[in-house]
């Protein structure tokens, strides 16, 4: 085991959190006075060091035998109240190590990219402060060893998400989008914290290890408590991971800077829900009903968001809906019990979706802020490197072998099929077809065909600088190679992660590893997946390259359907009409009548009574000493008379 000044890297796990926090503090307090270069270096170094340390921790963990790969480090008792004891402690196990490497690794790449992307922005130091704080919170979320500390990270990432969506707060739409994200997440967090309370009431502890050890004895299989806990936790996951019905905030979150969309709203934060479900897999396995809910919500979201993605014209919004859809896939995997496959897809998705967002950012940067795909086209020859990396990302998400997305998505579909959930499989497969279609639609509209750029944009369009292209290349490499950590199935990643599944009770569940699937079935499923992806690409090719008039014709022919899809099924409008507006109106009534009239009125009435009393009493203050003297005398006489009578 490699040692560092006499202690193993596992002991240094706290520094993984400390580096980003230090970056936040330094940039936050001094950033205004430092030059952009220094701020950028501090921000990137903080995350880079965290990644290097994470990697060493991972190596350390590999040296242990698989059964011992859990390391807990308690720092101090954070809250001690009665039987509630929340310890600020970190837990290193295969799952959290994979997550911290992903978060700090992808985070580092995006930090570097941001230095180039945000170069001309005035709030440079503010941006890096938020970004470092986000990374800190996300690492805390995945490293926490109890539910409450995880919740702190959970809220921390939500806060940073809000701050960064509304980063350009002088723009009304951006600040509204930030608030929308925050408020919608609050709905989910409410469920999450209720779930934590129910866990505490049931188990009398909130420590992961203790809860998961006690769960099989404490909870009845499929019992009410188990179902309630898992459903409440899942409500939190729905909010954070943008699933139906709380997904509406994510497309609006695209108002933030593009690297933020890549880091927070594609690669890391939005997958926190999936991480949480996998972390609590012991509880979910005890609640088959909740698992069904997870799978159905995941599957339906995957398909639903994919259909919306078909008709959007904003490059980032298409990617946002595709993120919603891909997270749906991850939940689908978790819901059918294939937790490791869910994490596998989470990882590959973080690579290729970060790549796609950063590629989109490069395009937006090159076009001077244009996001409408109808005003792009033919960028291939202006931005060759961006095009090539974007193509790799698109192939990965579409599921073409050997790119990363293929292995993970195929494995999810294979799991669904082999477990007999044909309906779920159908949802997933159809969503995969749509994914391939709309992603290639995006690619063709942006990079191929003839240019639809404005004269001004065309004159200025340029390939991005190296500091933007290098992160793209690294992520492209990961999108190509990333799939092989999970191929062939039941290999590296699944054997590494399997101790996490079932909370150490080996054999109670199969960890989502596909020992039970025959090779023939595996390869035929791969064939089907690839076929689906190619079909999607072909349709996109026919519609957007071969026959560019076709989309408009189809839109005209199925006008009703097109309008509905184009307007995102009017979900925002429905929410506005049923929830937002009634709430606003009720609040208005509460403000104008209950608060202003009743509550303020009550307080004002008391003040008025005192005032009136004063009006009467002031008449006694005449200014004549004689009157006062007479009052004193009168008072004295009255007291004496009274005491004489009473005695």
């Amino acid at each position: 085991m490699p040692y560092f000044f006499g202690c193993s890297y596992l002991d240094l796990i706290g520094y993984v959190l400390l580096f980003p926090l230090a970056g936040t503090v330094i940039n936050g307090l001094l950033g205004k006075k430092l030059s952009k270069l220094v701020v950028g270096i501090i921000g990137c170094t903080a995350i880079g060091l965290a990644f290097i340390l994470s990697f060493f921790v991972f190596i350390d963990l590999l040296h242990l035998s698989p059964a011992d790969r859990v390391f807990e480090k308690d720092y101090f008792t954070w809250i001690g109240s009665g039987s509630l004891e929340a310890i600020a402690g970190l837990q290193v196990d295969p799952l959290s190590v994979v997550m911290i490497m992903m978060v700090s690794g992808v985070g580092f790449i995006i930090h570097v990219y941001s230095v180039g992307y945000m170069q001309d922005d005035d709030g440079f130091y503010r941006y890096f402060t938020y970004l470092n704080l986000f990374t800190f919170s996300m690492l805390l979320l995945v490293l926490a060893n109890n539910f409450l500390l995880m919740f702190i990270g959970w809220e921390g990432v939500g806060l940073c998400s809000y701050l960064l969506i509304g980063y350009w707060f002088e723009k009304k739409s951006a600040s509204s989008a930030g608030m929308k994200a925050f408020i919608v997440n609050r709905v989910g967090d409410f469920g999450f914290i209720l779930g934590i309370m129910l866990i505490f009431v049931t188990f009398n502890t909130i420590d992961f290890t203790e809860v998961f050890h006690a769960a099989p004895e404490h909870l009845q299989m499929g019992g009410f408590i188990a179902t309630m806990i898992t459903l409440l936790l899942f409500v939190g996951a729905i909010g954070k991971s943008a699933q139906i019905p709380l997904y509406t905030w994510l497309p609006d979150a695209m108002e933030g800077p593009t690297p933020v969309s890549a880091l927070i709203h594609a690669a890391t934060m939005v997958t926190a829900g999936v991480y949480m479900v996998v972390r609590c897999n012991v509880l979910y396995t005890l609640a088959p009903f909740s698992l069904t809910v997870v799978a159905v919500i995941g599957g339906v979201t995957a398909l639903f968001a994919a259909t919306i993605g078909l008709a959007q014209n904003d490059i980032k919004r298409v990617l946002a809906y595709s993120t919603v859809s891909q997270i749906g896939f991850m939940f689908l995997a978790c819901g059918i019990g294939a937790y490791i496959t869910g994490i596998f897809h989470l990882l590959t998705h973080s690579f290729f979706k970060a790549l796609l967002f950063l590629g989109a950012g490069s395009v937006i940067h090159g076009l001077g802020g244009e996001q409408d795909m109808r005003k792009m086209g033919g960028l291939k020859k202006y931005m060759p490197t961006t095009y090539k990396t974007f193509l790799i990302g698109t192939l990965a998400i579409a599921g073409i072998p050997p790119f990363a997305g293929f292995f993970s998505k195929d494995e999810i579909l294979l799991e669904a099929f082999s477990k007999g959930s044909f309906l779920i499989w159908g949802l997933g497969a159809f969503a995969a077809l749509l994914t391939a279609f709309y992603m290639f639609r995006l690619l063709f509209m942006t990079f191929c065909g003839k240019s639809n750029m404005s004269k001004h944009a065309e004159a200025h369009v340029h390939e991005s600088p190296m500091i933007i292209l290098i992160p793209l290349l690294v992520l492209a490499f990961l999108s190509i190679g990333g799939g092989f950590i999970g191929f062939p199935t039941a290999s590296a990643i699944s054997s590494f992660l399997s101790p996490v599944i079932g909370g150490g009770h080996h054999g109670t569940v199969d960890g989502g590893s596909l020992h039970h699937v025959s090779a023939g079935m595996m390869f035929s499923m791969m064939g089907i997946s690839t076929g689906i992806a190619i079909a999607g690409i072909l349709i996109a090719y026919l519609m957007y390259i071969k026959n560019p008039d076709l989309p408009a014709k189809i839109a005209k022919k199925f006008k009703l359907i097109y309008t509905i899809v184009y307007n995102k099924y009017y979900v925002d409008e429905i929410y506005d009409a049923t929830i937002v507006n009634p709430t606003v109106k009720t609040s208005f009534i509460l403000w104008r009548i209950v608060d202003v009239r009743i509550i303020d009125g009550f307080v004002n009435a008391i003040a008025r009574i005192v005032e009136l009393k004063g009006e009467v009493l002031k008449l006694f203050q005449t200014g004549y000493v004689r009157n006062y003297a007479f009052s004193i005398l009168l008072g004295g006489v009255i007291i004496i008379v009274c005491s004489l009578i009473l005695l």
Partner: protein
Amino acid sequence: MIPLTWYLILSGILFSIGAVGVLIKRNAIVIFMCIELMLNAVNLAFITFSRQLNSMDGQIFVFFIMTVAAAEAAVGLAIIIAIYRNKATVNVDDINLMKW
């Protein structure tokens, strides 16, 4: 020996004269003297009871009252002089600005 009642009646009469003087007089100096009269009426009552009860408590009280009265006279006269300097009068009916 003169009976107790006479002393008390004298004290009561002096006190009443003082009180009535305070209420009806307009000159601040006279009001002030009336107040002194009331104080001394009380002193007389104290002395009377002190003798009657064979206790020194009443006489000690009188010393205190005399001390306080001396101090009060100093402060009070100073105030009256200050008012006179400002308003050229010590008529209390003209000194009525301290009101709402």
